[in-house]
C-alpha cells in the first residue's frame, strides 16, 4: 500500500512542480508574448443584435 502511495505521490509531486516551473519560467523569460485584443481595435463594445440562449438544436 505504501509503495502505491509513494508512486502516486511522486507523480503528483512532479506534476505540481512542472506546473509551477512552467509558469515561473514563462513569467520570467517569455517577455511580451501578447497581442492587441478586442478593446484595442474596436471603437465600441460588440453590438449584439439578437441573443437567444439554450435554443433547440438547429
Amino acid at each position: 500500500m505504501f509503495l502505491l502511495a509513494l508512486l502516486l505521490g511522486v507523480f503528483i509531486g512532479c506534476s505540481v512542480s512542472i506546473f509551477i516551473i512552467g509558469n515561473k519560467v514563462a513569467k520570467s523569460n517569455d517577455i511580451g508574448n501578447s497581442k492587441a485584443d478586442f478593446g484595442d481595435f474596436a471603437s465600441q463594445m460588440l453590438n449584439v443584435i439578437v441573443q437567444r440562449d439554450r435554443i433547440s438544436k438547429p
Partner: protein
Amino acid sequence: MVIDCPACGAALMFDPETGKMKCDACDSLYDPSELKDDFQARGQKELKYSSFDEADNKTSTLKIKHDDTEKISLKLNDTEAPAVSSSPSQGLSLKREEGDVSFNPESTFDNPVYDHGDEASQEQLDLDNETMECKIYTCTSCGAEVAINDVEASTFCSFCGQPTVVFNRVDSQRKPKYIIPFSVTKETAIEVIRKRLNKGFFVPDAIKNFELERVRGIYIPFWLYDVYYHDKQYLKGKVGSGKNEHTYYYYREADCNFKEITLDASRQLNDESSQRLEPYYTNKMRPFALEYLSGFYADTYDVTTSEVDTLALQRAYALFQEAVNETIKAHSISVIKNAPDYKILKTQYAMFPAWFLTFRYEDVPYTLLVNGQTEKIVGGIPYDRGKVASSFAVLAVVFSVIATFVMYWLLQDTDSEGTMKLLITILIFAGSGMIAGFSNLKKVKESMKLTSSSATNNFVKNRGQ
C-alpha cells in the same frame, strides 16, 4: 538627402525625448513642422533633394534576379560599376511566412468586399517577388558609395555614420500617410530591457549583463484596416462537467466596427514578431514628415493591401468571435453555422517605431524588440538550465513527500466511494497541471526561436552602417 541644421549645416536628427529635430553639433532644436516650412522657404535646397535620382547624386540602379544570381543586370548612370560587395543581398529572401496563420474559418475570405478609401492603387508598383531593386548613392558627407535596398527609406552612411534619408521626396506612392514618431530613446530602450531581465529569476547571469552587439531604431511599415464585421451564428457550448455535462445551443447576431487593425507591411519582418509589439496607440499618429526619419532606419512597405486583406479579415473574425463567445456562459464553445458579412472600410499606410537590440548568448544572436511608443518589450530569453533543474528538484522532493502522505492516508479508506472520487480528481488535476506546465515551457521555447530567428536578425543587420 540629409536634413541639415539651418544654423551650422550639420545633420539634424529626430530626438525622441523632446520630439524635435536636434543638431548634435550646435545643440539647436527645431520643430519638425517648422523646419518643413523652412525647407520650402529655401526652395533651392528642396529642389536639390527631390533630384535625388538625378545624376548629381550619382544614383545607380541594379536589378538582381532572385532565381538566378548570375544574371545581374546593371543599369548605371555612372560608367563605372559600383562596389556591389555591400549590397544587402539577404533582402532577397522575400518569401512571406504563411505558417503562422492558424485560423481556418468555415467561411472563406476569397472575395473580400473591397472599398479602400483614399489609397492609390498598388498595381503600378513593381512588386515582383523575383527581383529586388538596389540603389547606390553617394554620401554627401564622406563621398563613400552606399548600397540601399528598395524598401529602405532612411539609413546611416556605413562609413561615416551620417544619418541619411534616402526616401525620395517625390515618391508619393510609398509615402506613408501617418507616422508615430519615436518617443522612446535608445538609452531608455536599453534601460527597460536591463531592468526587466534583472527581474527574471531564470534569466542566466550572462544575459543579465548582456553586451549589445547592435541597437537599431527602425520605423516599420504598417497597414491600418478599418473593418466592419457582421455575423449571424448558431453556436454550441457545454455547461457543467462529468456526468452533469450538458450541451446547449445558442444563437447570436452581432456586428462591430474595427478601427485601425495593424498589420505589418514588411516582407522581411516576421508577422508574429510585429504583432507582439502591439498595441500601438494610433491616436498619437501624426501626418508623415520625412524629418522624423532622420537618425533612424526606416522601411517602406513591400507587402500590398491585396496581400494583407485576408489577414486583416482573419484578425477581425478572431476578435469578433472572441467577443461573441464571451457573451455565452458555457465552455468549449464552437460555431456550427454562420453567415458572415464584412466590409473593408478603409486602409491607411503608416510607419511605427521599434527598437531592435541584439546580443549573443552561447554564440546565438538574440534580437529583443522594444515598442518605440509604449516601451513594451518582446523577446523569448533562454533560461538558466541549471537553475530550472535545481528548482524543479527542490519542489519535486517537497511536493512528493507531502503528496505521498496524503495518498497513503486516502488509500486507507479505499472502500469509500467519496475517497476514491477525491483520489481520481487529484490525479486528473495533477495530470492536467503537468500538461499546462509543459505547454508553458513549449511557448517559451517558441518565443526563443522567434527571438533568435535569422529572419529577425537579418532584418536588423542587413542595412547601412
